[in-house]
């Protein structure tokens, strides 16, 4: 590659070589554009906020976010803790993964426990046994009691219609609520994170990533994931067209028969409402091939709670959900 003579007097216009001369190395692939953008966002937050925290479920989006955070500050350690909103209905593989990651990278973990809230009587178990909607209160309390002012979330705009209008810096009021009409316009790469005491800002560094981007990046970076993301045999039963895992959370009902199936998960969440898909994808490359031809979006395939109503996500976002 030719060197760029940037010191030659007479301005740059005639000294900068053409794209052809510089060669393909200056042509940035989309994954590197997304990575650079994510790192820029994470650094902006650390520079401008007092107490950031990264929401970490062990799901692939939070894992990629953590990977970007490690890159952003290297060789220094990640300068903020992780927070896990623990529904109590966890996949054991995911919990083991979470603890291993915290240990390996020397991180601090804050846990907000839904089970604790149920035990204290602050929250009541829903009749359907689903705990995803119960996460909001422990999440908001965790943010307030730790005085977190910036909360990194792995949300992507391609996930769901209500997310398509989400900002990268999303202002939440004292009640954690999101008001689409109060969001600030975001221009260029300038983010406005100003907030009043008691308010916080949700930050989504993966806003512009799609599910396929996330998987391609995981492959490119050889990032470890919880094992349930890859194909395995599992005892499952069918509810509302989805394969759910039997467990202490309450499933299956008497009328629901358990079967042994070869499955994998596309998302990680509360066991009671996170469905597996039948798949023989044994490694990340297989998963990518599967996604590239998939005709069902990630949330539709695996999240029962998003099907409750067409505007389910919009409602939960307003209330302060992720």
């Amino acid at each position, binding site marked *: 590659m030719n060197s760029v003579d*940037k*010191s030659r*007097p007479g*301005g*740059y216009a005639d000294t900068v070589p053409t*794209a052809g001369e*510089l060669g393909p*190395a*200056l*042509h*940035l*692939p*989309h994954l590197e*554009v997304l*990575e650079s*953008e994510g*790192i820029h966002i994470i*650094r902006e937050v650390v*520079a401008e906020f007092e107490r950031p925290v990264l929401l970490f479920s062990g799901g692939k989006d939070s894992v990629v976010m953590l990977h970007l955070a*490690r*890159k*952003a*500050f*290297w*060789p*220094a350690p990640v300068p903020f803790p992780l927070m896990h909103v623990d529904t109590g209905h966890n996949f054991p593989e995911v919990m083991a993964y979470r603890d291993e990651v915290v240990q390996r990278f020397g991180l601090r973990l804050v846990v907000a426990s839904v089970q604790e809230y149920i035990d204290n009587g602050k929250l009541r178990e829903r009749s359907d046994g689903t705990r995803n909607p119960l996460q909001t209160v422990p999440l908001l309390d965790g943010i307030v009691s730790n005085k977190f002012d910036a909360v990194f979330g792995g949300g992507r705009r*391609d996930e769901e*219609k*209500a997310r*398509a*209008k989400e900002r990268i810096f999303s202002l939440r009021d004292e009640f954690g609520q999101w008001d*689409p*009409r109060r*969001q*600030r*316009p*975001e*221009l*260029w*790469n300038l983010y*406005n994170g*100003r*907030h*009043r005491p008691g308010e916080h800002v949700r930050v989504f560094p993966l806003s*512009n990533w*799609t599910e396929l981007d996330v998987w*391609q990046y995981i*492959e*490119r970076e050889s990032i470890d994931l919880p094992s349930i993301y890859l194909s395995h045999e599992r005892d499952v039963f069918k509810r509302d067209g989805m394969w759910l895992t039997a467990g202490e959370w309450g499933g299956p009902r008497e009328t629901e028969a358990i079967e042994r199936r070869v499955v994998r998960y596309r998302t990680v969440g509360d066991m009671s409402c996170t469905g597996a898909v039948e798949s023989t994808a044994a490694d990340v490359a297989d998963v*990518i*091939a599967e996604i*590239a*031809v998939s*005709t*069902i*979006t990630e949330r*539709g395939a695996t999240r029962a709670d998003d099907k409750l109503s*067409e*505007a389910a996500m*919009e409602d939960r976002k307003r209330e302060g959900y992720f």
Partner: protein
Amino acid sequence: METSEVNATLTAPAPAEPLRLDRDIDMLRFATAGSVDDGKSTLVGRLLHDSKSVLSDTLEAVERASRDRGADGVELALLTDGLRAEREQGITIDVAYRYFTTTRRKFVLADTPGHVQYTRNMVTGASTAELVVILVDARKGVVEQTRRHLAVAALLGVRHLVLAVNKMDLVGFDESTFTAIAAEFASAAEVLGVTDHMVIPVSAQLGDNVVDASTSMPWYDGPTLLDHLEAVPVGIDAWMQPARLPIQLVVRAADYRGYAGQLASGVIERGDVVVVMPAGVTTTIVGIDTFDGEVALAHAPQSVTVRLADDIDVGRGDLIVHPRQEPRVVREFNATICQLSDRPMQAGDRVTIKHTTKVLKAIVDSVNYRLDIETLGHEGADSLALNEIGNVTLRVAGPLAVDDYIDDRLTGSFLLIDEHDGQTLAAGLVGDAIRVKPGGERP
């Protein structure tokens, strides 16, 4: 939203052809703008649908919603409607981002509503776009709103413009209608100094020339919209410009001190002599570090950490550049601003300016004029209201290293923020962001 546009022929998409799983595709950010009833939502829906970016459960949900509304078939516009509040009121209230990938490119689409009062949304969407698609209705041709969209795109420095002449089916696919609109648009674009523009006759409703070539317009031999989106060069400007590395923060570890930032433009190499602005101190880059190892060269828009030869005072808000390519250092400057807040901007207002990674207090010394975005004329003004664009003189509390927006999008742009309630008041472009071609007159 065009609720009257119902497409009865739409069927569920065939399983998408396997994408080429090449990780080295590039990424184009583009925006769409159109007037009410130009069929923009339908066009975007068609683009997503025909490029097989709409997955079956999404399509089912839209089919269900279309039926609930009493429509005969699927309303493509519903594919792009986000919030229930909008669906109930039949409006689009803000910029929505859409994503689709073809075998050649990943696309990030900023879908902006067309109402005249939503200039701020188009400014927002265009700020990160390398290309803007403007829609017109073939029956109406270039209207004032089109000129407004064209001017905003030119103002925001969007390099490539596309005019999609929609609803060609409603003018009998008539070539002369198209040619007249194309000529009018070309002369309007030329006045604004926009040289790269493409005019494409389409029918979003029927799918002609959106993804698939039309069979009804044999007289048109140009690219379809998607062909053009896939062919436009991307990311060239950012690294053809002088190097600009705004420092976000200092990375400190044992025996390590590096300056982290994302290159706004240009190329830096290990060994480069550089100047740290605004102080003007000269030093040398001794290392460019990333998590994946040291690199000899980095270019925009990469995020890097650089080590410098000398132990000098460098921190957030400083800008690393090459000698003889320094930006201007100013304490007072003129800028074009677009008012984003419903609180008007006037002389004497105290604000906070955010420029690259630097935040300073500032005072609006004067409002110099309001820009009539349709005629590009200057009107006398004491204040700038929501959605108005005009020129102001700003005085800042410390030295600021700036480029004109026309020369560098990221070191020439800024936000003005309310010191008290934190809201973003205005988007700013350093200098006269629009330069009408000398002697040019608006047709």
